[in-house]
C-alpha cells in the first residue's frame, strides 16, 4: 500500500514536471498593436489575425497588447530609445521612423526570411530600410479623391481630368451651396495629402529630391503648389471655417453630403462604404495631372503603409515564431477579413466598390511616393505640418514659410548639395 502511494506520488511529480517543461518550451510572442481586436469593422483584420494565428499555431503563445494612437508610437519610441522592454513585434508604418530604429540596431533583419513572401512592391519597399527587410505591410494606403457621386450626378458634374479643372468644378459647387473639399486642417496633418499631390504634379519627384537634399523646399515646385493651394483656400473651396474643423468633422461633412470631395488616404474606404456611417454614394478617384507645365502624372500616387509589422532585436532567439507570425499576417486567410483597406497580398479581393476603386488606383500607379511625414526624418515632421497649416491663414506668405521650413531642414537634415 505504502509502495503504491510512493509510486503514485512519483508519477504525479513526474507528470507535473513534464507538463511544466512542455509549458516552458512554448514560445511567447509579444506583439504591440494599435487597435483592440474587438468586433468593430475597422478592427476586423487584427481580430482575424490574432484568433487565426492562435488557432493555427497552438504551440506559440501570443500576447497582443493594443496601445492605441498615439500610445503605440509614443511607447515604441521610448522603449526603442531605452533599448530594453522591447516587444518581439510591433505595428509600424515603416519608412524613416522604422529606419531610425534599424540604424540604432533595435530591429531584426529578416531579409532572407521575408524576401519571398508575396506582396506588392510598394508595401515591401515601405518595410525595407537601406536594402534590408525588417517586416511586412499587409495593407497599403494610397491618397486620392473621395467624391460624393450623388452630388456630382445631381448637378451633372464629373471628376476633372486635370488640376485646372478643379477651379470651375469648385465654383459650381460653391454656387450650389456645397463645400467643395472637406479637409480637417485643425488637426494639422490632413492638409498634407493635397500638397503632396500638387507638388508632385508641378515638380515630379521634387519631394524625393528635397528629402535627399538635392532640392530646396522653397524651390519653384513647392512654391507653385503652395500658391495654388492657398488660392483655393482663399476662394473658399475648403469652406468658411477650414481651421475650425478637425479630421472627424471633415468625415462628417462628407457623410452628410455637405462637402463634395475629400482628398485623403484610402483608409477611409471602409467608413465611406459603411451604410451605418453615411447614406451618400461615395467613390474614390486618382488625383489628376496638370493640363500644362506639369511634370508628375495621374499615375504618380502618394501612399503609405496602412498596417505593417516589424520585428525587434529582442526576438532574435524566436526568429521562427516571428517569421510564422509575419507570414501569417500576409496570408490571404487573415487579410480576407478586412472590409476596407487595400491589401498588399495578391489574390485578396476588395470587399466593397470604393476599396476596389482605390485598389485600382494603386494597381495603376507607376510610382508611389511615401507620405512625407512618414518618410522624412522625424526632426522635421511637425514643422512640415505646421507650415502647411499656415497656408490656411489669410496673411501667410507661403514663399517665406517654405523658406523657414527649408532653413530648418538645412539645420536638421543638411544643406542642399
Amino acid at each position: 500500500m505504502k509502495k503504491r502511494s510512493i509510486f503514485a506520488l512519483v508519477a504525479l511529480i513526474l507528470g507535473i514536471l513534464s507538463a511544466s517543461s512542455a509549458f516552458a518550451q512554448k514560445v511567447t510572442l509579444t506583439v504591440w498593436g494599435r487597435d483592440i481586436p474587438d468586433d468593430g469593422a475597422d478592427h476586423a483584420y487584427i481580430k482575424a489575425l490574432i484568433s487565426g494565428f492562435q488557432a493555427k499555431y497552438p504551440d506559440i503563445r501570443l500576447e497582443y497588447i493594443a496601445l492605441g494612437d498615439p500610445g503605440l508610437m509614443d511607447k515604441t519610441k521610448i522603449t526603442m530609445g531605452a533599448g530594453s522592454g522591447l516587444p518581439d513585434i510591433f505595428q509600424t508604418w515603416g519608412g524613416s521612423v522604422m529606419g531610425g530604429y534599424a540604424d540604432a540596431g533595435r530591429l531584426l533583419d529578416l531579409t532572407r526570411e521575408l524576401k519571398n513572401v508575396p506582396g506588392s512592391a510598394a508595401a515591401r519597399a515601405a518595410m525595407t530600410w537601406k536594402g534590408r527587410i525588417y517586416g511586412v505591410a499587409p495593407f497599403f494606403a494610397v491618397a486620392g479623391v473621395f467624391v460624393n457621386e450623388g452630388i456630382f450626378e445631381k448637378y451633372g458634374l464629373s471628376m476633372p481630368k486635370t488640376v485646372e479643372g478643379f477651379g470651375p468644378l469648385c465654383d459650381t459647387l460653391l454656387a450650389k451651396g456645397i463645400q467643395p473639399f472637406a479637409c480637417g486642417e485643425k488637426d494639422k496633418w490632413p492638409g498634407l495629402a493635397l500638397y503632396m499631390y500638387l507638388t508632385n504634379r508641378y515638380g515630379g519627384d521634387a519631394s524625393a529630391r528635397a528629402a535627399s537634399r538635392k532640392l530646396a523646399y522653397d524651390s519653384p515646385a513647392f512654391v507653385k503648389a503652395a500658391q495654388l493651394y492657398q488660392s483655393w483656400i482663399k476662394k473658399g473651396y475648403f469652406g468658411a471655417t477650414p481651421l475650425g474643423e478637425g479630421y472627424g468633422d471633415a468625415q462628417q461633412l462628407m457623410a452628410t453630403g455637405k462637402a463634395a470631395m475629400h482628398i485623403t488616404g484610402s483608409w477611409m474606404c471602409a467608413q465611406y462604404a459603411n451604410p451605418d456611417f453615411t447614406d451618400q454614394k461615395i467613390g474614390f478617384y486618382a488625383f489628376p495631372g496638370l493640363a500644362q507645365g506639369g511634370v508628375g502624372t495621374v499615375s504618380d500616387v502618394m501612399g503609405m503603409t496602412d498596417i505593417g509589422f516589424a520585428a525587434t532585436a529582442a526576438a532574435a532567439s524566436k526568429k521562427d515564431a516571428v517569421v510564422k507570425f509575419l507570414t501569417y499576417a500576409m496570408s490571404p486567410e487573415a487579410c480576407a477579413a478586412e472590409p476596407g483597406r487595400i491589401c498588399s497580398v495578391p489574390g485578396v479581393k476588395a470587399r466593397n466598390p470604393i476599396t476596389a476603386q482605390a485598389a485600382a488606383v494603386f494597381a495603376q500607379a507607376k510610382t508611389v511616393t511615401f507620405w512625407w511625414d512618414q518618410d522624412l526624418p522625424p526632426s522635421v515632421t511637425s514643422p512640415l505640418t505646421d507650415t502647411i497649416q499656415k497656408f490656411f491663414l489669410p496673411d501667410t506668405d507661403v514663399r517665406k514659410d517654405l523658406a523657414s521650413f527649408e532653413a530648418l531642414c538645412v539645420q536638421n537634415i543638411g544643406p542642399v548639395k
Partner: protein
Amino acid sequence: MSAHDIENHGRGGGRKTRARDWKRGAFVFLCVLPAFLFLAVFLYYPIEETFRISTTKSLGLGPEIYIGLENYRRLLASQEFLAGLLHVFTWAFWSVVIQLPLAFAVAFLLSYYSNRFTGPLKSIFYLANVLPSAITAMLGKFVFAPNYGMIASFAKHIGWKWLGGVDFLGDPRLAFWAVFAVATWAYTGFPIIYLMARIEQMPKELREAAELDGASPWRYARSIVLPDLGYPLRILAVLCTVGSLKLFDLPNMMTTGGPGYATETLGIMLYRRGFIDWDYGLAAAIGVVIFLLSLLMTAAELSIGARREKIA
C-alpha cells in the same frame, strides 16, 4: 564629591548624551531616508538629467553629442517658442486677473448667501474641475465648433448669422480666448472651493459686527473678507502661474497649438519636439525653461506677498 569625580561623571554623562544624540540622529536619518531616496530617484535625478540632456544633441537613439547651449540658442531663434512663451505669460496674467477675482466673487456669494440651494451649486461649480481634461476639451470643441457647435447652432436658431459664422477655434485672433474661456470654466472650481473653505472658517462675530455697523455685503467682502484671504490668494496665484507655464492638455486637445501658433504653449512644443520629432535635446531645453520660470515666478510671487504682509 571631588572635582575629579564631577569631571568623570560629566564625561560619562557627555558620552551618554552623545550616544543618545547619535541614536536620535540615526533614527531621524532612517525615517527621512525613504522619502529622500524617493525624491532623489524620481525628482532630483530627472531634473539633473533634463539639464544634462538639454546641452546635448539627442535623438533618443544612438549617442548623445554635447553641444553646450546650442539648444537654447535654437529656442530663442524659434518663432514657435517665442509664441509659446508669450501665450503662457498671457495665460498666467489673465488667469490671475480673471479666474481669481471670479473665484473670490463666487466663493463669497455662495458663503454669504448660504442656503439650501448653494450646496448643489458648490458641486456644480466644482464639477468641471473633476472632469478629465479630454472630456473638458471635447465639451469645449462642441461649444465652439463651427457649423454644428452649440454657439453656432444657437446663433442659427435665433437668426444671428454673424455669430454662427464665427470660427472660434480656427481664427488665430479668437482661438486663444476660446480655449481660455473653457479653461476658466474648468479651472475656477478649485479656487472657489479653496476660498470658500477659508471664508467659512472666519468667525461669525465678524460678520455680525459688520452688519451691526451697517456694512453692506460689498463693504464686508472688500474690507473684512478679502484682507483675510491674502495668503490663500497668493497660493492660488502661484498655482495659476505655474499651471499656466506647464499648460498642455486643453490647448493640445482643442487646437493642437494652432491655427499656426495661435494657441501654442511651451508644454505643447515640448511634447511635439520630444515625442513626435525625437529632438530630445531641444525638448529638454524647453523643460529647463519651464522649470526655471516656475521657480522664479513662485519665488517672486511668494516674496512679494510676504513683503506686503510685513508692511501691513
